[in-house]
Each structure stands twice: as C-alpha cells, then as structure tokens.
C-alpha cells in the first residue's frame, strides 16, 4: 500500500511539469490553430533564466546586499523569470509566427522547430556545453508519512503548479482579455472583425504560455537540479502528447492529461520492467487516441475546420 502511495506522490510531481507545459501548447493551439513546437525549448530557456536570476539573487544575499530568506528568493525567482520569459515568448511570436500567420500551417509548425533549434544552439553558444547546477535554495527535508516519503520540494512543486493553473482558469473565465481569448478560440476569422485585436491577444497568449513554461522550468530545476540546453526537447514532445490527449485548445483537458501522462509513466514502470516504460505508456496513449481522436475535451468541429 505504501508502495502505491509513494508512486502516487511521485506521479503527482512528474505530472505537474507535463500539465504546466501542455497548457502553453494548448492555449496557443486554441487561439491560433498552431502547434508551437518551440515550446519545449521555451521551457528550457525559462529554466536557464531562473538559474540566472536565482544565482544572482543568492549572490546578492550572500554578500549582504539584500537580506532575504531563501524561500523569498525562490518566490522572487519564479515571478521575475516568468515575467522575463514571457518576453521571450512574445519575441518568438512576433518574429517567428506573426509573419507566417496566413501561411500554410505546416510552414508555421516547421518554423517552431527552427526556433527551437535556434534557442538550443544559442544557449550552447552563450553558456557552453557544460551542465549547470540549479542553486538549491530550499534545503530538502524528507517527511516519512507511514512509509511514504514526501519532501518539502514535492509539496511545493505540486502546490505552486495547482495555484498557477487555478489562476489561469480564473483569468480566462473572469477577465475581459480572457473572454477575448475564448472568443478567438471559437472562431479566429470572425472575432477580429468584431474589433478584438488579434495581435494583442496572440502576443498575450504566447506570453502566458511562456510564463507557465518558465515556472515549470524553475520547479524542474528545484526537483532535478542539473540543467542542459537540450532538456526541453523530449519533455516538450511528451507535453505536446498531453495537449493532444487533453483535447486541442482545452485548458482543463491539458491539465488533466498532463497529470494522467505522469501517472501512466510512473505506474507503468511500477508494474512492468522499467525498460519498457515509454513503450507501454505511449502505446496506452495511442489506444486512447484511437478511440477518442479529439482527446478528452477537444471539440470535433475545430479539428476538422482548420487542419
């Protein structure tokens, strides 16, 4: 029984990352009918920006320039990095996607791959190939809850992820901009004719998606403190799978599917030999998609309309 709960805790943490990144894919798709394949690399950029901000703040604190406890530094790191990475997202949209908005969707998707490669190799050129260690801002404390080991980091990661998802949900449901986003997702040809500024909404969508990816990057750095320029590729693919599984354009779907993906990966490894983990996990997802080609919450018409 402890074995099961231990895996459940592990899966919750692992699923949070997928969910946070899948949200970015899903939102952009919902509004622009575009798969932003550079999103996994924006996650990487977010992690590195977080590394830079955290290292900078920690150095300032150790020199005595600012007197802040480490957890405040971590919160500040998350906020500042989310803000900075949202600009990276907006630049990507402005330079990479906006000129291609009327182009065939395949061209735009290929552009995403290029931008991804540019971000990876740009990082390589800037910082070199060596791994960096994300500063350990919070001491890891392990709690033994009747045989189930939970760390303060795990609690924090799952908590912060859920908070961000809830905030996004409120934003989309309650604000004017959120309403514009939903309208755009409903029909992006007619809605701009009603006076909704498509460029502003598109930039904002990219900014929000990138900010969430940055948060995921920093939380990832806290849990798995070794960063490298290619960390976002496979992770991005898997989160993309989650976005499709949740239903293209669905925020709730992306969140749930992200967690589901984490659960499937962890529990497959729990039952079967770990060598077969991805093979079995992704076969399961293939089967789900065969029976639900639009994902859990995707609407059939939107997929048929524009792809």
């Amino acid at each position: 029984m402890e074995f099961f709960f231990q895996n459940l805790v592990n899966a919750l943490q692992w699923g949070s990352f997928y969910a946070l990144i899948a949200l970015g894919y899903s939102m952009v798709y919902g509004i622009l009918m575009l798969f932003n394949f550079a999103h996994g690399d924006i996650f990487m950029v977010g992690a590195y920006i977080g590394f830079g901000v955290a290292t900078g703040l920690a150095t300032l604190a150790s020199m005595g320039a600012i007197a802040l406890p480490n957890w405040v530094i971590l919160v500040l790191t998350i906020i500042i990095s989310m803000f900075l990475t949202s600009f990276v997202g907006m630049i990507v949209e402005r330079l990479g996607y906006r000129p291609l908005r009327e182009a065939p969707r395949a061209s735009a998707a290929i552009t995403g791959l290029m931008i991804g490669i540019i971000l990876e190799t740009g990082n390589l050129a800037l910082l070199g190939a060596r791994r960096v260690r994300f500063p350990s801002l919070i001491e890891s404390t392990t709690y033994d809850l009747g045989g189930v080991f939970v760390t303060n980091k795990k609690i924090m990661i799952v908590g912060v992820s859920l908070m961000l998802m809830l905030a996004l949900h409120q934003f989309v449901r309650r604000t004017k901009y959120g309403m514009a986003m939903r309208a755009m997702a409903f029909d992006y040809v007619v809605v701009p004719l009603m006076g909704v500024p498509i460029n502003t909404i598109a930039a904002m969508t990219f900014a929000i998606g990138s900010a969430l990816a940055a948060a995921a990057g920093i939380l990832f750095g806290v849990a798995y403190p070794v960063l490298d320029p290619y960390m976002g590729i496979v992770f991005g693919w898997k989160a993309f799978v989650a976005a499709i599984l949740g239903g293209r354009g669905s925020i709730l779907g992306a969140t749930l599917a992200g967690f589901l993906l984490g659960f499937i990966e962890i529990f497959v490894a729990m039952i079967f030999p770990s060598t077969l983990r991805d093979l079995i996990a992704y076969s399961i997802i293939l089967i789900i998609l065969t029976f639900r080609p639009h994902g859990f919450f995707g609407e059939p018409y939107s997929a048929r309309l524009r792809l």
Partner: protein
Amino acid sequence: MRKGLLFVVSCLVIGLIFSPCAWGKAKTIKVGINAPMTGDIPKVGEGTKFAAQMWLKDINAAGGLQVGGKKYPVELVIEDNESKAESAVKVATKMITEDEVLVIVGPQASKQAIPAGGVANNYGTPMISPWSTNPDTTKDRPFVFRGCFLDPFQGPVLANFIKEEFGYKKAAVLYDVASDYPKGLAEFFKEAWEKVNGAGSVVAYESFTTKDADFSSQLTKIIKSGADVLFTPQYYNEVALIVQQAHELGWKKPIVGSDSWGSAETVELCGKDCYGLFFSTHYASAAAKGATKVFIDRYKKKHGYVPDDVGALTWDSLLIVQEAIQSAGKITGNIEKDRKAVRDALARIKEFDGITGKMTFTEDGDPIKCAVVVKISDKGEYEFYKSVCP
C-alpha cells in the same frame, strides 16, 4: 579559347585543392582527437582537450617528434562528436579521409568508441580510446587499442569490494539501457555479484533511457526490493540526479558507482548528497606521487581544477602513441603505410608505465592494470581507499 581558359582554371583549382595536403603529408604528423566537446558529457571532452594540448606543448617545446633521426612538427585535429554515436563515426571518417591523421585518440565513452573503432579498423587507421571500458571497442579489431581496464574486470572488482567492505547479500542496479557502457557494466556486475552471492541476489535490476531526469518509479521499486546497496554505473550528470532522488525517497544505504563517476564535475553537480560514496576508477588524484603528481599540478595550475581520470588516461594514451610513432622507424609520407607501421609499433608495446599505473598489453590491445576504489570525502575530494589488481 574558352575551353582553354576553362582548362587552365580547372588545373589551378585542382592544384589548389590538393597542394596543402601534399605539403602536409610530408611535413607534419597529424593526431586526431575525437572527443565529446558538447552533448551529454562535455566535461569529458574538456579534460581530453586540455590533456592533449598539454602534450602538444611538450612536443612543440622539444621542436617536434623525433622519428628516425628527423624531427616532425605535430598538429592536433580536435573534433567534437557531440557525445553521439553517429557523430563519432562521422568525425572518425572525416579525420581519416580528409584530414589524413596518422592516428586517432578517442572517442572516450563506449557508446561512441565502439562504432568509431569499427570505422578506424576498416580504414586501417590506428585508434586508441583512453577511457572506453566496454570489451567490444577493441574486440577483433587489430587497429584499435585502449588505455584503460575493461568492464569484465571492473564488474567483479566492484562486486567483491562491496562484499568485503559491507558484507551485503542483496544488491540493486540502476542503469541506462540505451548506452553501451552502463548497459555492459551493469551486466558484468550482475554476473559477478550472483557468482558471489548466488542466483537472484540482484533483487532489483532497473533501467531508464538517456536524458531521463526522473527516476522516482525505478528508485521506489529498488527501495521496496529490500536491497542493501545500489550500484549505478552512470555518467556524472545522471549520478547527481539519481543520488539526490534516492535520498529524497528515503534511501539511506550506500550507493556505489563506477569509473564514469570520476569526472571533475560530479561533486559540483551532486553536492553533499554524494559525500561518503564509493566508486571504482583509474587513478586517485588526492595524495598522488611522482609523475602523476607532476601532471596533476601542471594541469591544475593551468586550468584551475584537479584533472579527472579522463585527462590522465588521455595523457597516458598520447604518450603510448608517441612511443609507437617514434619506434615506427620512419615516416615515409605514404599515409597508409605509415598508419600500418604505427599500428604494428603499438602492438609491439608490451609494457607501459603511465601516470595511471603500470600496464601490460594483451594480444587484443587491451591493457591489464589495477583499478582504484575511491571514496568521496566530506570535502568533495576523491580519496584513495583501496587498490585492486588483477
């Protein structure tokens, strides 16, 4: 008229293409360095490059390499194999066919050294891998050599060490199934451990694939299996993640590693979690003596950190290559003939006293040498703990 002009221009172009090679052939000795400068293990590439540059400096200071009474300048061709098998093959092919190197040093990791060794052997170019411990690298390849011990030796060394040191009976293994070195060594360790402790004494044998960052499900299984010790033959970037996650999941027993742990960056990435752990390696940098100490001091002075086993093995391999070239007789300028001569000279070396210890070479071009078990001290240094000789 136009045809004539075209002919003249073509001649000039062709002449330009071939002339530098023609000069180079007669005058310089080129040594290829096939190293992972980027990719998963860049620190390994850096150590290789720094050691090779130190060696080149010595050669240049002596005015070149003396072969058959004549001095030849030496040039290094350092290429990045991105820590990928396919790139290592590409690099080896390019060095052999375009750069016309006399001999190749590297690749380091078995994942790259096994395929690149095949290329070198097919082209009849001598290659020495300083750090690849998987048997397949040199197996049935007369042109391929190495500078370190093999995994069929390292596996039992570790199994016996754990048995003698801790007296444990149940072990768990966690390894990367997509990489030749961890996969091979995991198998040799399992075999050796079960020989000592009986069948089924490896109670968990878990794997993952390269670039995975989360090992929680594998580690949870390992903890549940009741193993006394965890063996993980991984590279330095994964070691940091595995060890930390194991501790966070409540693992308090020892974790033992192999020579891939020996990088200068392991402790930097892993931090306090790695203190007190053991691994087997090629040399212990702390408390070294003689030529080893001279090398360490020189390297540290120049680059600011203690060289890891890769640096030391690369140094030894280059000295072996140097001895082979010098005893090859003469450089004829015919690259194929010269390569063959260097290969034969390499095969003639039976004993070599390097900074990583004395080695005796077998028929296959594999050295027999001692392994060292080191303990990561509370200051993060690699302390000599025990030496195990075959």
